[in-house]
């Protein structure tokens, strides 16, 4: 079975631009979460979506938004990019909302803002 797939793997953007990151969860997983991981730190929670509804939002500005599609894939959008948005963006899927079976992470999208 395919794992969690994210695209693109790497991205370079200029300050002020907008970016869209994509995630396809494991087949059958209905929950998708997004995390930002800065070098040397643990992942920071951004959003969780379950059954196409936002079920959790972390402490990130409104420039960050996301959505989940009927096939459970998800997009993360970041507007008005800042240098500080440079990070590894991880997507994680789980079968349900609880996460009691653990989260499966994708390999991430490395975003560099210049």
């Amino acid at each position, binding site marked *: 079975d395919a794992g969690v797939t994210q695209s693109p793997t790497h991205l370079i953007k200029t300050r002020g631009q907008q970016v869209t990151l994509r995630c396809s969860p494991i087949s059958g997983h209905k929950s998708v979460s997004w995390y930002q991981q800065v070098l040397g730190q643990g992942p920071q929670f951004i959003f969780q979506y379950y059954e196409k509804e936002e079920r959790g939002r972390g402490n990130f500005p409104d420039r960050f938004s996301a959505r989940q599609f009927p096939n459970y894939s998800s997009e993360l959008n970041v507007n008005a990019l800042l240098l500080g948005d440079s990070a590894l963006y991880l997507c994680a899927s789980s079968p349900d909302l609880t*996460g009691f079976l653990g989260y499966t992470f994708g390999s991430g999208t490395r975003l560099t803002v210049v």
Partner: protein
Amino acid sequence: QQPVQSPQAVILREGEDAVINCSSSKALYSVHWYRQKHGEAPVFLMILLKGGEQKGHEKISASFNEKKQQSSLYLTASQLSYSGTYFCGTDTNDYKLSFGAGTTVTVRA
């Protein structure tokens, strides 16, 4: 609020043991443990639910003391493959994981 992990780093020789601690200031519903190797995605090791249970995964086990809001990960008879950064993720019953800063484990032959 992020949990606090200790130590920040540990170096082991093959066969040695280590303990990684994770502490939260909030009441915890569950604790997750993940291992991330350089340039790779975090990999789920185990979850502990409130109730003080202990779980094992090969020679890696963990405990959860919900009264103290603490969890510990035990690496027993370490192997080279155990090298990586270990993260605890805590859930305060809102299904949003807060991850610690990580503990880097280096196992040498």
